[in-house]
């Protein structure tokens, strides 16, 4: 009789742990999916920028330094792709800044502003940038959800043993980059 009770308790505990484990796995997969969404948009932005530079650079007297900055920022952002979310976010934010100043300069060139091709590229880049920030919101929400789950009872009791580690947010807080705790165990 006692044996049956003990076995029943063990089975119940095992089922509960399995349920929690599955919950954590699906949360972690959601993070990876969300990160994938951001990557797609970042890639799209990287692909659009050379076209924009090409379209703009023909205009007489256009500030070459601005173009150089954008091209450099793009190269850095592409390179940062493999350095984890925090470094990547930092590089992408620099790129966003460079693009903003480029579009600010475009405002001074009425011909350029009216150029159909430039207008189209500007719209494409605007939407990509919005997509990036909305995917980032979504990504951060999934990370928050996951981090909360692994740091609270009951999952906190065994999350570490089962290999669930805290994930980092996709944003460029200077404080966050000071102590790099990059999880290379992605996926």
């Amino acid at each position: 009789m006692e044996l049956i009770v003990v076995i029943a308790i063990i089975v119940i505990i095992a089922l509960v742990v399995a349920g929690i484990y599955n919950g954590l796995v699906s949360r972690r997969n959601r993070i990876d999916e969300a990160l994938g969404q951001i990557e797609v948009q970042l890639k799209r932005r990287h692909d659009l920028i050379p076209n924009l530079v090409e379209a703009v650079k023909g205009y007489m007297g256009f500030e070459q330094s601005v173009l150089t900055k954008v091209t450099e920022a793009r190269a850095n952002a592409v390179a940062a792709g493999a350095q984890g979310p925090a470094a990547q976010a930092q590089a992408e934010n620099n790129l966003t800044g460079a693009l903003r100043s480029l579009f600010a300069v475009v405002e001074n060139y009425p011909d350029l502003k009216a150029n159909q091709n430039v207008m189209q590229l500007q719209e494409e880049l605007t939407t990509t940038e919005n997509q990036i920030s909305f995917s980032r919101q979504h990504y951060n929400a999934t990370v928050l959800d996951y981090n909360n789950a692994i740091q609270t009872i009951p999952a906190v009791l065994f999350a570490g043993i089962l290999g669930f580690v805290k994930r980092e947010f996709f944003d460029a807080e200077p404080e966050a980059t000071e102590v790099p705790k990059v999880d290379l165990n992605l996926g």
Partner: protein
Amino acid sequence: MATATFYDQIGANKRNSVLLALVVVVLLGALGLTIGWAVTGERAAAIPSTGIAIAVGLIAAVFSYFGGASLVLSVSGAKEIGPQDAPQLFNVVSEMATAANVPMPRVYIIDDTAPNAFATGRDPQHASVAITSGLLQKLDREELQGVMAHELSHVRNFDIRFSLMVGVLVGSIALLADFFLRFTFWGGGRRGRDSNDSGGGGLQIIVFVVAIVLAILAPIMARLVQMAVSRQREYLADASGVELTRNPVGLERALAKITLDTEPLEVANRATQHLYFENPIKAATGQSSNLFSTHPAALDRINRLRQLSGQSAVTDPHEVLDPRFAAAALRGAATPSVPPAPPGWNRPS
């Protein structure tokens, strides 16, 4: 936690849909029962007539679940467009779908100069958004984003399913009640003559009176519930739309622009009005949220948004669109640089 409230809200919406559907089914059954009894004078006839009324309601609900969206879209004269037809609109919708974490809905254009928009469908996987060409023309990118954030909140919160089902169920109550009232109007004279022979009895007269009262009250009750829930949803969609864009200004400006436009939308009717971004049938009184309106007054919506972002309330939508207007009003200048709105700004002149 902010996300929890969304899930709560989605859950509440799904529960409300079921609850309201039940209330409406009960009302339909009661109507069927009394009408069947009253018309035939036989208590036994009430059983099949109740069954028929409920069956009609349920069949209508099932049809609306699967085919309601396309019906609404075709009734409104909406045409589906592709990304190349309106690239910016497509981009904005896609951005907001990302923000709301729902699949990209289908996009429709209604060729009408009146500014308005709506979302419909049975769930986020089968959703559509429609916008009038007038609205598309009047709004800039930021404002368009505000409107689409509102619409995609409706999609994410399952408001679209609720509106679809309720619209049809409330419609079928109205239809049945209307049918009966017409019947009594036309058949009443004949019945008067017959009753002398058959001596129908006091009971049938009572049932008849109950049926008439129910036929008058049931559609009103159903509609009241629908409207109250609909108004609440508009506020919620505004607030969650801002939570998506993190920018209340676009939506505020869009609301101000739309409310200052007094042109009615020709393709909208009583059955579809609750779906729209802003009430398409502009009644003579636009001032306050009255009992029967599907939408809160736009100024109310603007001020609730301003409250969310800690801005002071406005008394005139022009203030949202043009800061000079507010400044001039504050200074008490006799001649502001923009023409002041007439006192009855939201009434069609």
